[in-house]
């Protein structure tokens, strides 16, 4: 029986009450934590989102990944340089992935903490703080992990200067550029949903699936690269290649689920969430607009009847037309804006033509009805009458004939 070599049985040196190699305060992640948090908070505060809506606030937080992603990738690359320079020179009894994860723990912790802090700040600004659902926090978490391991993988493969440049620029470009790309679905698979969401919308689950596919593929490919560089060469060398191929296939399958998305990463919100007071139904987040919608609707309804036209009894207005409601409400809080919007939309809402603009002759008739309707309304600001039509200008006597002529859409 052969005696084990001394290095194989030696116990690691222990330094009581402190880490053996360095202080956490000198890790790049901790050094970059405050600048990262400040920049991300500045970015978040400069972002225009739908006020009072937790989902929109959370989507704005995911947009800060354009700052957090490159910084965690840079810090991870920095940590991986140290690992790379020591790897093979020291006796390490732990497996490669445990060493790598321990090395990257401060980076992951800082990334997650910055994102968590931004979520807390963004959600506490709401009058009624609410949980935005698991999808966006999940994408933030996955983004931090994926870009961290991406940075480490670049440092394990490339030279130091090139790796730092790649670790900084690739996440930045991947998170900012797709916002202007076509086809539109390409904009929604980088983990940072662009243009999400109005109170009438919720995040489409396909965005989460597609983004998880892309970020998960980046994560798994990075781990495969790390394994190739760090694991013993004779230790199942085919495993990394097999996982990489499987990751690419699975990622492609996830992304293919998102190819049906359009310009917006959203789907309509369920009408069950509407809150109705009297004859006005609004989303809970739009409660400030209740008075303007109620007063505007009362005035527009009377003006419509004044033209000799009818409105169904007990007609309710709402942001969506579900349940027989008229989709007329606005999120504006001034009555003039509400009246203007309703005057433009009421003829179309009553005929089911809100989304039908194909017939120019019919569009002109709708515009003339809107002009007639607006002419019977009083506005604090005369400039608020937005719709104009070419001469001859309509007169109230034309209302009934115009109304008969427009007919109904989809019939």
């Amino acid at each position, binding site marked *: 029986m052969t005696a084990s070599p001394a290095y194989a049985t030696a116990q690691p040196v222990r330094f009581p009450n402190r880490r053996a190699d360095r202080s956490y305060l000198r890790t790049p992640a901790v050094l970059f934590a405050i600048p990262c948090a400040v*920049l991300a908070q*500045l*970015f978040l505060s*400069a*972002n*225009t989102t739908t006020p009072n809506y937790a989902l929109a606030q959370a989507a704005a937080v995911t*947009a800060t990944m*354009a*700052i957090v992603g*490159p*910084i965690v990738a*840079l810090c991870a690359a*920095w940590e991986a340089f140290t690992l790379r320079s020591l790897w093979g020179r020291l006796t390490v009894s732990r497996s490669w992935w445990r060493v790598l994860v321990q090395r990257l723990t401060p980076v992951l912790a800082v990334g997650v903490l910055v994102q968590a802090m931004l979520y807390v700040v963004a959600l506490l600004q709401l009058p009624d703080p609410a949980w935005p659902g698991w999808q966006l926090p999940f994408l933030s978490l996955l983004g931090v992990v994926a870009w961290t391991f991406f940075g480490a993988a670049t440092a394990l493969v490339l030279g*130091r*200067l*090139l790796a*730092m*440049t790649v670790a*900084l*620029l690739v996440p*930045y*470009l991947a998170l*900012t*550029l797709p*916002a*202007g*790309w076509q086809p539109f679905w390409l904009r929604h698979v980088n983990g940072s949903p*662009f*243009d999400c969401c109005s109170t009438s919308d919720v995040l489409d689950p396909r965005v989460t699936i597609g983004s998880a596919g892309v970020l998960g593929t980046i994560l798994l490919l990075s781990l495969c690269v790390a394994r190739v560089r760090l694991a013993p060469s004779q230790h199942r060398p085919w495993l990394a290649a097999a996982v990489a191929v499987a990751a690419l296939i699975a990622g492609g399958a996830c992304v293919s689920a998102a190819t049906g998305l359009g310009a917006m990463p959203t789907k309509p919100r369920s009408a069950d969430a509407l809150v109705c007071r009297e004859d006005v139904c609004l989303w809970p987040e739009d409660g400030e607009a209740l008075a303007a919608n109620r007063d505007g609707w009362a005035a527009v309804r009377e003006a419509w009847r004044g033209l000799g036209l009818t409105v169904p009894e007990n007609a309710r207005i709402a942001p969506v037309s579900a349940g027989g409601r008229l989709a007329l409400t606005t999120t504006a809080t001034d009555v003039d804006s509400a009246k203007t919007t309703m005057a433009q939309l009421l003829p179309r809402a009553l005929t089911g033509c809100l989304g039908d603009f194909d017939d120019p002759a019919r569009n002109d008739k709708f515009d003339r009805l809107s002009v007639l309707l607006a002419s019977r309304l009083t506005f604090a600001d005369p400039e608020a009458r937005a719709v104009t039509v070419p001469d001859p200008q309509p007169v109230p006597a034309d209302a009934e004939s115009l109304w008969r002529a427009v007919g109904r859409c989809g019939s």
Partner: protein
Amino acid sequence: MKLFLRAHHASAVIAAGVGLMIAAWWLAGSTLPVPQLMQGRAAPVAVEMLLTVLYAPLIAYSFGGVALRVEHGTRRSLLGPDLCLIAVVGAPVLAVVVLAAANGDGGFGATIGRDAMAFIGGALLLLTAFGESTAVAGPVLYFFVVSLLGSQPDGSAQWWAVLRAPATPATVAAAFVVLAAGVVIFHLRARQTAGERVSRV
């Protein structure tokens, strides 16, 4: 001089610089479509700014590394070779500036010349003060911040984000000052000769 230029990767740097400048001229006028829903704080940023920021890793690669450490012990001035190396790095930029001006596109030439001078000078300053890693990370992080937070709601640039604005004589002069400061500080701090250091002791 030949050995000096070879040790500082002059041929690789000039090849990369030529590539960057060709790409910048080819893509002149195009922008990076960063998200624009940020109350005007973020607006599309010119591609040439992204390309010129890549001079930072080139400077760290060329002026830093083993050659810098070896030359730290030299007993004669390296001002001449350093200026020659700067000329090599700046030659593609100068060529594009002159060609752009000759073709009536002086605005593009001034902008790319200003950005290149600022990033080269900034990288030299950071290389001298903090080392190669900071010389790469600093300019690239500045580019991030400028592109994502450096715009005013009216489309103009914040005062600290002048590199995203069209070039003016004042900003070109400021970039030249940064370049000159980078060269001077690099020469004074990173090129102290062994003889000078011994005499101070």
